[in-house]
């Protein structure tokens, strides 16, 4: 019975989310020419609602071609880059964290300070600098490290790196923070007293215990990666989902739903699972 109740509430929440997205999508109508058109706004909301819930015809920006097979193609392409970006960012974060915790333990304060600074730099600037460095190396030495712009060949390596680097500093910061917090707990002292080595404690005990907390920050990570992806789409001339979304109202609402619904469901399911887990243990 509780499962049915949960599913109904999930469904309702999903509908609320989509409804809010529709309100946003119709928003430019309300302020067309910076005067308020309430009547037209409600009309646009109604129209969009009918369209979304009856799965009506959606068109691309030119208003002729149907949106549907085309946008899924873009969607999977963008998600591929995003997924690879998340994996790369986690790898970079792991590498920095392990290096700083195991090798440079004494300079941890300086490293944290540096991370704080790097994290505050707008991602756009980091990406532009990265691209500039690749171009400069090509001009000076003739070695092409990666495809810089998609013209005929698709740029792939550099977009993935660009998406992952700005966020990896944030992940590292959070990661180090959680690990430090965990290291102060009593069971670590016990483990040390038993003569276990530091890497062993880190890998086996600390990592398992902070996994849950790390997952909690994944929403922020995902959110800011998406906005980085938009810039990357523009800069590398990639024509990804996020760029297509900005061409018109139909692509915008469909893109928002495509992004929102899967992640929303994923998070809710995770929340139930983890909460039930904790309840069992407690």
């Amino acid at each position, binding site marked *: 019975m509780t499962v049915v109740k949960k599913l109904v509430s999930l469904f309702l929440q999903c509908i*609320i*989310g989509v409804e809010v997205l529709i309100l946003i*999508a119709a928003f430019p109508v309300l302020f067309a020419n910076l005067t308020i058109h309430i009547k037209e706004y409600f009309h646009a909301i109604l129209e969009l609602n009918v369209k979304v819930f009856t799965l009506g015809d959606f068109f691309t920006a030119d208003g002729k071609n149907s949106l549907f097979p085309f946008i899924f193609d873009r969607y999977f392409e963008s998600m591929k880059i995003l997924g690879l970006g998340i994996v790369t960012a986690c790898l970079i974060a792991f590498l920095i964290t392990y290096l700083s915790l195991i090798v440079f333990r004494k300079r941890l304060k300086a490293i944290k300070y540096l991370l704080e*600074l790097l994290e505050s730099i*707008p991602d*756009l600037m980091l990406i532009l600098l990265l691209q500039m460095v690749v171009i400069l190396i090509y001009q000076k030495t003739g070695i092409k490290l990666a495809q810089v712009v998609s013209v005929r060949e698709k740029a792939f390596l550099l977009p993935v790196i660009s998406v992952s680097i700005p966020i990896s500093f944030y992940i590292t910061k959070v990661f180090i923070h959680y690990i430090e917090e965990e290291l102060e707990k009593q069971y670590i002292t016990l483990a040390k007293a038993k003569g276990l080595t530091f890497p062993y404690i880190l890998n086996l005990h600390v990592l398992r215990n902070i996994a849950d907390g790390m997952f909690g920050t994944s*929403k922020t990570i995902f*959110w800011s990666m998406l*906005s980085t992806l938009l810039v990357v789409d523009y800069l590398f001339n990639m024509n990804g989902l996020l760029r297509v979304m900005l061409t018109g109202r139909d692509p915008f609402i469909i893109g928002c739903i495509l992004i929102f619904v899967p992640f929303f469901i994923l998070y809710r399911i995770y929340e139930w699972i983890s909460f039930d887990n904790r309840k069992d243990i407690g």
Partner: protein
Amino acid sequence: MAIFLLKRKRFVVSVLFLVTLFSWSIINNGEIEQIRFITDKSGNLLDAPPYPPFTVFLLGSDKLGYDLGQMMIAGAKYTIGITLIVAILRMVLSIILSAFIYSLKPRIYSVMKSIFEPFSVVPQTIIAFFILVSVLWMPIDGFPNPFWQRALFETAILVIIAIPNLTIQLSDEMRQVEREPFIEAAKILGASKISIFFKHIVPHVYEKWILLFGQQFIQALQLLAHLGFMKLFFGGSFIAYGDSNDPPRSISYEWSGVIGDSISYLFSDQWIILVPIIFFVLTAISVALINDSVKAYFQSKANNQAKK
């Protein structure tokens, strides 16, 4: 507090940097020197724009021979000013909203949360761009509205799109404080809701507000940079319709606009784009440093209290 902060070099340097840049930009008359080309006495062309840095101007010039350094200073008041206003408004409005929301019943609160959910999944840049593009992109027969209306509208949108997330974050913190035992004690002693909020909850969360303000500043700066990069400049993008293939121009010399203007020089004359980037990065870093120092101050205060 002032003494602690003044002792930290990082704090002093960053505050000085921001204040000088901002006040210099306001005092400055906004004229930008232009050198079309350099000739020798007999009239032979020696050099033509864009000039690299350290030759004609300290920071180089753009393709029309305008001094980039002066451009940056003229733009500073817009970029820093707008970001500051947006960040302050975001904080104030969210604090007011969260003060009303935090004490709602859990059921209503969770409905509230799910209404605000889409804002934490769909990035701000996309929503902002989508809403603003119809207003800020110049139609073929010129802008129908004056500059200040467009600027006001943009500021309002930049503020509003961050409020849902921020409000939830703030009221979550307040709810956490509300669960503490001393709130219960205050309630039993007959404290009203208002006095609980001001006397017991605010002292526990206001330090976080100050730190969040710095974060919001950086976030707003980044949002502005993204919008400028996508050729949506503050107050509107002028587009030269017709024969000329000029890229969209920004009205003010706002930094993100300069980046958006000159994005095509990434491959040849890198400094045109590097100069605004450096200014952006320096501003972001100074704010981060200030935030860091304030955080250190709060930590040392907490340590002192623990010792007592």
